[in-house]
């Protein structure tokens, strides 16, 4: 079983990398991109029996810094 964890900067936290990507897209002629937020995806290969709550605990303790980041867990 796998879990896919999405980690994003919280709304309101400036994402200078996302801004740089947005500028680059505009400069390349891709119009209509109002904003870019960059995050990360972490895939965990899990033993059977590891629950979504376990993965959420991992997010709270290590995978995300909840001061600046939000996360979501998808069991796949």
């Amino acid at each position: 079983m796998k879990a896919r964890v999405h980690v994003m900067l919280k709304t309101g936290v400036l994402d200078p990398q996302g801004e740089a990507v947005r500028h680059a897209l505009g400069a390349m002629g891709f119009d209509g991109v109002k904003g870019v937020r960059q995050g990360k995806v972490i895939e965990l290969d899990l033993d059977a029996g590891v629950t979504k709550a376990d993965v959420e605990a991992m997010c709270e303790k290590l995978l995300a810094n909840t001061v600046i980041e939000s996360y979501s867990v998808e069991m796949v």
Partner: protein
Amino acid sequence: MHAAVIVFPGSNCDRDLAVAFEAAGAKVSMVWHKDTALPEGVDIVGIPGGFSYGDYLRCGAIAANSPICGEVAAHANRGGYVMGICNGFQVLTETGLLPGALLRNAGLKYICKTVGLKVATSDSDFTSGYTAGSVINIPIAHHDGNYYADADTIAELLAEDRVAFTYEDNPNGALADIAGILSANRRVLGMMPHPERMADPVHGGTDGVALFRALAGALVTA
């Protein structure tokens, strides 16, 4: 003063910090990240600059969960002194010993230069050797030094006089120009600039010396 300097894989200012502590008269013990106890009688723990664990995941995140960091937190929670410089500051925010987080520099570039730093408070054993409001020259060398905390936390830091240093010319986008902060008990300091790199005339300046001397004066080993 007995200082412990933590060494992580990827630390690169550990020896500089040890030299600065020693020059102020401290006995220094180097402590490996896998150690599970601090040496007996340690007054202050120094968490040095560098790239602990290659900055994997987030700067300081893996170091903050290393075996020794539990002991560092216990030391701080007993009222012990802790000082984190650069990557050490990032580690301290990741452990929760200091509030906030260090984001990527607003200009996205790694910045390595000497900056003007205002001593925002002299009310701590780290900053008592300076006059509040004075400007000192200390180098920065970081990619992720953009201090962020929510508005309530920033207001609390300011109201409680817990901002230790501010940038004269904000290089990285840090909120309220914050370069260094203190814990509520004023015994934990985190700062992005490197006072240990301005601690000897051969460094090109000695503005960092007063910090180590003030600590040595406050932490006279019994």
